[in-house]
């Protein structure tokens, strides 16, 4: 008779639900209620091994408060420092807003798939961002700037509610110098604003798009993305060349919790970046 073994013990260290400690190295206020947190894993080996691609996200954990999925918004060429531009919107992000440099948070990641920056090599790019959506696209811009010559025209169409809500204002000048054509609009101007007023999709009226060789990447409120896609498709950009980044409730980021489903897709696995041709049947479907 075999020896009785009445219980078994978990020896697998690879629990994808366990966060790892990371230190807040810097907090840069961006706009009212938005700041960029620079995080680094406490364990130097872990920090050195971390890599991410533009569009991927981390789960940031605060003991006792919970966990949030936040896009990496920093330069993928410098992955040891994980930049996260965070809007203080819910319980966890507001608690994050009370932390200071030197405090520790938990981090798991990176999760999700990436913007097709490789696929777009040699082609032109129209990046369409609304509000905090620019945070998920900033790594794309920074990646392109590292090898600007490898791409055709690169346009950024960006908008926010008011001039005070525009992110990365101190960087946009560098992006322009680096060869990114930047068009900015606000929904509501103030007396100092000299730029465009109107919603982001209207910026398409100001540009010419070579539909045969343009990739469109968009992130922002779903209603903005929907109309940005209309404008792109109206200019005969094929659906297969349009990419969106979607946001859903996420608890696990590894396809177990079921929260982030959109039809057949788990946004945490097949997304957050999705090809519009794949997502179209479910995109903008009311309450789906």
């Amino acid at each position, binding site marked *: 008779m075999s020896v009785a073994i009445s219980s078994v013990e978990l020896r697998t260290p690879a629990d994808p639900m366990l966060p790892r400690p990371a230190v807040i190295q810097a907090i840069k206020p961006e706009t009212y209620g938005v700041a960029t947190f620079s995080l680094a894993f406490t364990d130097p080996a872990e920090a050195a091994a971390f890599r991410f691609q533009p569009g991927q996200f981390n789960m940031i954990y605060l003991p006792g*408060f919970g966990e949030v999925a936040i896009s990496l918004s920093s330069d993928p060429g410098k992955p040891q420092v994980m930049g996260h531009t965070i809007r203080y919107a819910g319980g966890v992000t507001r608690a994050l807003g009370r932390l200071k440099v030197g405090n520790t948070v938990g981090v798991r990641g990176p999760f999700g798939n990436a913007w097709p920056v490789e696929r777009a090599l040699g082609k032109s790019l129209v990046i369409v961002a609304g509000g905090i959506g620019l945070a998920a696209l900033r790594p794309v811009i920074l990646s392109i700037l590292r090898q600007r010559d490898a791409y055709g025209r690169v346009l950024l169409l960006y908008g926010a509610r008011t001039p005070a809500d525009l992110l990365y204002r101190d960087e946009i000048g560098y992006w322009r110098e680096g060869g990114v054509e930047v068009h900015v609009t606000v929904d509501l101007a103030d007396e100092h604003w000299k730029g465009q007023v109107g919603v982001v999709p209207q910026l398409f009226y100001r540009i010419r798009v070579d539909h045969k060789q343009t990739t469109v990447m968009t992130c922002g409120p779903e209603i903005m993305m929907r109309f940005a896609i209309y404008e792109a498709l109206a200019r005969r950009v094929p659906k297969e060349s349009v990419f969106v980044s979607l946001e859903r409730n996420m608890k696990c980021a590894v396809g177990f919790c079921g929260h982030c489903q959109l039809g057949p897709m788990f946004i945490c696995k097949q997304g957050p970046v999705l090809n519009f041709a794949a997502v179209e049947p479910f995109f903008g479907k009311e309450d789906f």
Partner: protein
Amino acid sequence: MGTTAQSLPRLGASVVLPKASLATLLENLRATGFTPIGPTLRDGAVVLDELAKVEDLPVGWTDEQQPGQYRVKQTRDSQYFGYGLGPHSWKCYLYPPRLKLFSLHRSDGQWVMQTPGAVVPRYALIGVRPCDLSAIAIQDRVFLGGEFRDPHYALRREHIFVLAVNCSQASSTCFCTSLKTGPRAAPGTYDLVLTELPEKFVVEIGSEAGSEMLRDTNWEPATAFELGRAAQVIERAERQVEKELRTDDLPRLLYDNLEHPRWDEVATRCLSCANCTLVCPTCFCSTVEDSSNLKGTASERTRVWDSCFIQAFSHVHGGNIRPSTRSRYRQWLTHKLASWIDQFGTSGCVGCGRCITWCPVGIDLTEEVKAIRGKVAS
């Protein structure tokens, strides 16, 4: 022959076992270190719990099930497995409703993490019905089949012993025949499978471990006559299945009818109570709960079952993606019968009928699908 101490039936063999030998079988499982879990009677329902002794099984009980109705009643026979499925499924053991993921405490300004000493019992699942075996195979795909593996599920799953039972009767809410999950257990999914005859069991040996558990029982090789009687028992159960779910036009039917008026109609009946997702043997959605002490120096993270019927399930800043009962019922049904196929290569439904029986207002998903099919656009 067969009853000598050394001789054990070979893999794939069929034997007959006196009913009294089930006690020996359970003792053998215990002696090997297994904790037997099986059906038992509690609070007027057949539920799963630890079986301390073979008498804990609801011998001589059966049940009556209708949409929204469940009643147990005593019979005049002494069948060990003469009842249908209760509200519990085996996911309660393989994928626990509450699971502590880790705890943290603050020490010298640093958070120190402790993972629970994940020591879990080795479960012997007693009386697993064929549809529930399929459900376990489906959850295997969810938790073990992808890029990430759930170590908690793997730990519990890898060490189970499965004593399956072929069905000898069908409830009015059963429709396993539509999903090809029953009433006979598929080979390769069990260690042992019983078919219950009035005076004995016919047992098929599915694994070496299964054979080993027949040690010291009074098993005999099954005769062709006994095998024939066992087959008749299963055929009778198959004939009793009345409910049907056509699956040939899924997932398209549901994807093409996301705006069907039936979703509005079912939303007037559905209470969004989440009962169906709790009793479903494949539903796997979970959330996490964080709790901390009042001083903020210790905190805990727990994974708990969640349901797409709960309003906060789809919460993002600014609101809920699925604010209405209509949108939540549609999510559940399209996931179960359509997008599940895209995600995991199998339907999320095994035809067990629990969601029909345990729906407080008796919503029957097979009727909902029929209604949608009845009036498809064009």
